[in-house]
């Protein structure tokens, strides 16, 4: 099974590389999309990866604006220093590796852009230098979005009326064009060796690079966007979409049963230098309790989210706001009775309740001067039903009171001396972590011990 998966991955990679190489002649050393359009990064990005209105149209147009490039590749690398306020657990052991010294955290290669007037996309392959316990590097597929698009004009030939397309991707919301949704929501990059909270909703990054989504979308008069996609675990033909990811550890990743629906509806309005979006998105997911046992019955998770975005983009002053709330209803129709009977399913969850809710809130505001000097403040919160079976006490990673609640703020300062280079300072301040402000893990650790400072150099080329 594993060998077959690798074989298919290699075949797919070879296929894609050949497809691109068949089209190449010469190379230019700038990011792929900018090279394709000849435009600067700021045409599409407030600052990468947050999109401008034009950037949204570029993405919805299947990345097909401009001239197809002979070698549509781009590179990305991040070098940073992470400092955790208290990186020792109650036994005095170091919690996360390689803090307080500069490390190459990750590097990616992108193949992306236009293939024909109606087909485009991008594939990201990432080398994570701090994989596992931080001692070894590991590479695998990252975000991927491939599209076929079409459009029709207004009768007076002044504007697009319908813009429509198909997308194949490997992360719910990676295909979305508003940065209020999780895949390209703030923070745009995180410390590679920070301390993670116990709970997150499924659409908040829990399925990335594990699933294959195939969906259709329409965008009417640059106003109303609707998308319907089906997500399934990236098996078989789709296995390259999770190439290099660990799928063998019981309970390690989430595995879907069948094809599960994802929807997205958004209203967009632009006036003056402003744009506003109000929207909703969600998914109904059937999850195997243990990802290595895809023959059991499934738990059912339903995520329903609302989101909003406002942007003001002008010559000197740019400010943007994003908000989303994801409400997740967790129906442990398999895991709960199994746990109750004393026979949990493999490495799956052991809930103390038949049903739980989990809510994600994210609110972020950004200001940029001259598109070079930026500051962002985000308030983030995850909270929900106490469940001692899911959130048990344990040093650093556990919860003494069985609550999933984590809340805090992220402050980020950015300086972009060049449009493709971001120097950033990021600070995570926690008011609550895994359920409490003080002694949250049951062995005396306060939430603020997890406060993290991250200085990062982020280069795309």
């Amino acid at each position, binding site marked *: 099974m594993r060998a077959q998966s690798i074989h298919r991955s290699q075949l797919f990679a070879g*296929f*894609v590389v*050949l*497809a691109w190489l*068949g*089209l190449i002649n010469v190379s230019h050393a700038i990011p792929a999309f*900018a090279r394709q*359009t*000849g*435009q*600067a990064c*700021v*045409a599409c990005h407030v600052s990468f990866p947050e999109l401008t*209105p*034009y950037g949204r*149209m*570029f993405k919805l*147009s299947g990345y097909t*604006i*401009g*001239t*197809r490039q002979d070698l549509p590749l781009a590179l990305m690398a991040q070098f940073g220093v992470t400092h955790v306020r208290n990186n020792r657990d109650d036994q005095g052991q170091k919690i996360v590796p390689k803090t307080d010294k500069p490390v190459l955290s990750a590097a990616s290669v992108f193949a992306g852009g236009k*293939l*024909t*007037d109606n*087909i485009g*996309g991008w594939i990201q392959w990432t080398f994570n230098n701090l994989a596992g316990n931080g001692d070894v590097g590991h590479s695998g597929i990252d975000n991927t979005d*491939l*599209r*076929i698009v079409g*459009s029709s*004009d*207004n009768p*007076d*030939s*002044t*504007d*697009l009326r319908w813009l429509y397309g*198909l997308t*194949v991707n490997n992360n719910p919301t990676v295909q979305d064009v508003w940065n209020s949704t999780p895949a390209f929501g703030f923070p745009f990059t995180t410390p590679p060796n920070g301390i993670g909270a116990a709970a997150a909703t499924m659409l908040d990054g829990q399925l990335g690079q594990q699933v*294959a989504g*195939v969906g259709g979308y329409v965008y009417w008069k640059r106003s109303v966007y609707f998308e319907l996609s*089906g997500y*399934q675990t990236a098996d*078989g*033909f*789709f296995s390259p979409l999770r190439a290099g990811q660990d799928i063998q550890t019981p309970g390690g990743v989430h595995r879907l049963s*069948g*094809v599960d629906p994802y929807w997205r509806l958004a209203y967009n309005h*632009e*006036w*003056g*230098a402003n744009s506003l979006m109000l929207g909703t998105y969600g998914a109904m997911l059937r999850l195997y309790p243990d990802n290595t046992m895809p023959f059991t019955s499934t738990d059912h998770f339903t995520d329903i989210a609302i989101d909003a975005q406002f942007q003001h*983009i*002008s*010559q000197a002053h740019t400010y943007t706001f994003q908000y989303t709330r994801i409400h997740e209803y967790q129906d442990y129709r398999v895991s709960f009775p199994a746990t109750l009977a004393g026979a949990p399913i493999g490495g799956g969850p052991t809930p103390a309740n038949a049903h739980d809710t989990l809510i994600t809130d994210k609110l972020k505001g950004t200001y940029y001067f001259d598109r070079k000097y930026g500051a962002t403040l985000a308030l983030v919160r995850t909270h929900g039903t106490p469940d001692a079976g899911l959130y048990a006490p344990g040093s650093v990673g556990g919860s003494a009171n069985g609550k999933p609640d984590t809340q805090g703020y992220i402050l980020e300062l950015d300086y972009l001396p060049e449009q493709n280079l971001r120097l950033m300072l990021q600070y995570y301040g926690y008011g609550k972590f895994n359920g409490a402000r003080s002694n949250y893990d049951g062995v005396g650790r306060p939430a603020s011990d997890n406060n993290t400072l991250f200085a990062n150099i982020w280069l795309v080329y």
Partner: protein
Amino acid sequence: MMRMGLCLQMIGALLIGLIAAPAAAKGASSVSASNDVAIKLATQVCSSCHGPGGNSVSPTFPKLAGQQEAYLVAQIQAFKSGQRNEQEAHDYMLGMTTLIDDDTAAALGRYYAKQPVPMGIPGNPAEVAAGKKVYEQGVAGSVVACASCHGAHAEGNGIFPRLADQHAAYIVRQLQVIQTNLRNSPVMHGIIKNLKPDDMRDVAAYLQSL
């Protein structure tokens, strides 16, 4: 559900399979064909910033509806050649215009010139009145009347652009970059080199109101 999965796999196969397909070569040289290319460009690309039919909403991007055909073509060439070297020209237009051949540039000029012009936006009455005076009479001893080249109603003439109903912020920005020679326009530079910021603001408010 298996059928649905199979269906999605087939769609995915179609999409990924098509990635390898060579793009169809195409060329067009007739005026009609150029018009078609221009309409496609205008509706699918230009309109994202310059608005439907050239009626942009963002003041970063100029309104093109009803603009003088000769001026539009000249500006496309100026972007391509680097004569317009202000930051926005470099960031947004340099790359886009290098993809536009001469026939398509001419067709884009024709397309936008015939688009219905938008309504003006009323501004501060005092600024509009002061701007009207600058536009029609110039500034005594330093700046000649704008109307002498741009027309009594700011409708433009040939390579002199239409200024009526243009975004005020865009006009101010262009006056600044011409004054500082970031945008290479020797004649205009000579005329406005002594134009003061308040006069720029006023004349822009007047023009936006037309």
